[in-house]
């Protein structure tokens, strides 16, 4: 071995590194949909708005961010689906300019008044911007719809009712031939707002469900799958399976009409939005705080009680005035007809009603 030839060897390494760097620059130059650095939008809005929180809102938020950024090319909005709890913590710590949360702040949390980014003593803006029905989906050959009441649903998901031709199911579905097949009830294995709202409905409506509402599945046993996609896959790949998932993902699966009062109600956007209008406002809140107490036991006609309601939370008075125009523009866009239409298309949400819109608009306009 000659020493002279060995001296050149390390150069090859740096050559590889150079190729890698050049490659990354090449990739950088051709991301066609990324904005040019330092671009200014016609609307004059610029800067970065940082939000985060409920992952349930994620699909809709991505759509809103996309449309908003297309209209305001100089502005960047980041929505990080960190989960509601982390989103609220980050909002309190001032790390998020706004947050999406599957529940409003509780009275004792508000009483602490420790929101870093907000001026002390001013109220918090909370808008139920995201209303989405949760469908109970199942897969049985030849059956597309079943009527069930809360007690039966609870029995199925607790594992007390194990066969599809159980008397409790059959008695509510005269005329449907139910197979003698084992029920596989699929729930979420990860923590989620969907599970929290689903268990909240069962807890409020039937004593069969003896566990509290929780984002983590409260009972041992049953089939568990990761995320909405996991549940939908498990239900569609199995036989005799039943699960719950965001209604936009129900696809070709059979769905359950839920008993409300004397009727069985299929999920629909209108029926989901109706329950928000039927529900009373949380007591003792400021006019800009639109927190509601969902009335899951309502027996008003045409109400679908298994909904996920998620909030947009912001300060009504920011310490940092520079961020205010961006917050107002983005939040204003989300609640607008145009924004809600985008949400319907991207995530299948139920658009907010006109009355709620008026209140929300006033709340957003008050932000300073």
């Amino acid at each position: 071995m000659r020493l002279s030839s060995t001296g050149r060897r390390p150069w090859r390494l740096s050559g590889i590194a150079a190729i890698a760097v050049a490659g990354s620059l090449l990739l950088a130059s051709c991301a066609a949909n990324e904005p040019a650095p330092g671009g200014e939008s016609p609307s004059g809005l610029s800067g970065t708005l940082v939000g985060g929180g409920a992952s349930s809102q994620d699909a809709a938020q991505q759509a809103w961010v996309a449309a908003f950024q297309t209209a305001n090319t100089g502005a960047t909005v980041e929505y990080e689906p960190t989960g509601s709890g982390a989103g609220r913590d980050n909002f309190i710590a001032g790390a998020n300019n706004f947050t999406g949360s599957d529940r409003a702040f509780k009275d004792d949390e508000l009483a602490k008044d420790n929101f870093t980014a907000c001026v002390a003593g001013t109220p918090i803006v909370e808008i139920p911007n995201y209303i989405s029905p949760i469908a109970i989906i199942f897969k049985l050959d030849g059956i597309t719809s079943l009527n069930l009441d809360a007690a039966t649903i609870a029995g199925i998901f607790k594992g007390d009712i194990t066969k599809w031709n159980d008397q409790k199911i059959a008695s509510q579905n005269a005329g449907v031939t139910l197979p003698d097949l084992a029920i596989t009830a699929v729930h979420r294995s990860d923590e989620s707002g969907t599970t929290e709202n689903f268990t909240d409905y069962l807890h409020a409506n039937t004593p069969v469900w003896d566990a509290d509402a929780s984002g983590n599945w409260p009972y041992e046993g049953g089939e568990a799958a990761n995320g909405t996609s996991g549940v939908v896959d498990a239900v569609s790949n199995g036989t005799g399976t039943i699960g719950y998932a965001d209604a936009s993902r129900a696809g070709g699966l059979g769905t359950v009409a839920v008993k409300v009062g004397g009727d069985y109600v299929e999920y629909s956007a209108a029926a989901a939005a109706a329950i928000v209008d039927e529900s009373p406002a949380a007591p003792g809140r400021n006019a800009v705080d639109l927190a509601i107490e969902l009335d899951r036991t309502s027996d008003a006609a045409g109400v679908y009680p298994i909904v996920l309601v998620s909030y947009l939370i912001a300060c009504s008075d920011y310490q940092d005035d520079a961020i205010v125009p961006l917050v107002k523009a983005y939040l204003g866009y989300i609640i607008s007809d145009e924004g809600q239409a985008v949400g319907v298309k991207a995530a299948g949400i139920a658009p907010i009603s006109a009355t709620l819109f008026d209140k929300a608009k006033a709340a957003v306009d008050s932000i300073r």
Partner: protein
Amino acid sequence: MPDTAAPARAKPRLRPGDRVFSGSALAAGTLILAILAGVAAFLIIESVPVVTTDPKDINILDGQPFWSYVAPLVFGTLWSSAIALLMAVPVSIGIALFISHYAPRRLAQGLGYIIDLLAAVPSVVFGLWGGNVLAPAIQPLYSWLTEHLGWIPLFAGPASGTGRTILTASIVLAVMVLPIITALCREVFLQTPVLHEEAALALGATRWEMIRTAVLPFGRPGIISASMLGLGRALGETMAVAMVLSSSGGITLALLTSSNPGTIAANIALRFAEAFGTNINLLIATGLILFAITLVVNMIARWIIGRRREFSGAN
């Protein structure tokens, strides 16, 4: 193979350059120890709040004590990995023997590369495949097993309707560790002294007898260390298990039902996205336990190898 102890005997004069170079080599080695200590230290620091906080304030625990939360996860981790290893090791040895002693010489290397391809598949893809291809395909077999062999506790019913059971997860894990174990076993088998093999054949041994008397005894420490490496990988595998396993139950031996114990790694991945406050500390504490388990497994493996090596006549 050259004797590594030799460079020490040839003692060149120590120069400043030597000091710097050996110093930096030593520093790099020590840095590794520091990193490992750092991993342990940071995990411990972040785990402390779990001990000091009331379990009622950690909403994942939901009031139950820490250990009763972790126990099923620890069991699930060990159980799924053990089953995976039980399936993967014999098959891996078979493949390694096939490549080293059975396949035509010219093809052997290419065939080895094909098996290595399995190692190139990211775990997310294994997760997608396991959940959407393997599980539905194998579900009828599970139904059949619970119906006809349900009296064996392992196959106790009712069978899962989707096939996403701990056995499916273990099969996926087995496929994932297969290339690792195979690659190491293959290397060891190829190093069997040719003289031993030829001696066995010359005595009239069949090919299997030659392998049993010459190749396997020589390769035993290698097989064990390969298996332990595979076990370590299986214990820590996260995404594939999270996407395949229906983890909803406590400690059970039943392989084919919907209620399976989760695994530590998959549980962290499932809960981390929505975790906040002390929940994160709780998850890190379970990670610390996983770290401790893999540490123990590795120590046992090294101890076995060290002990075996003394008795193995092959060296």
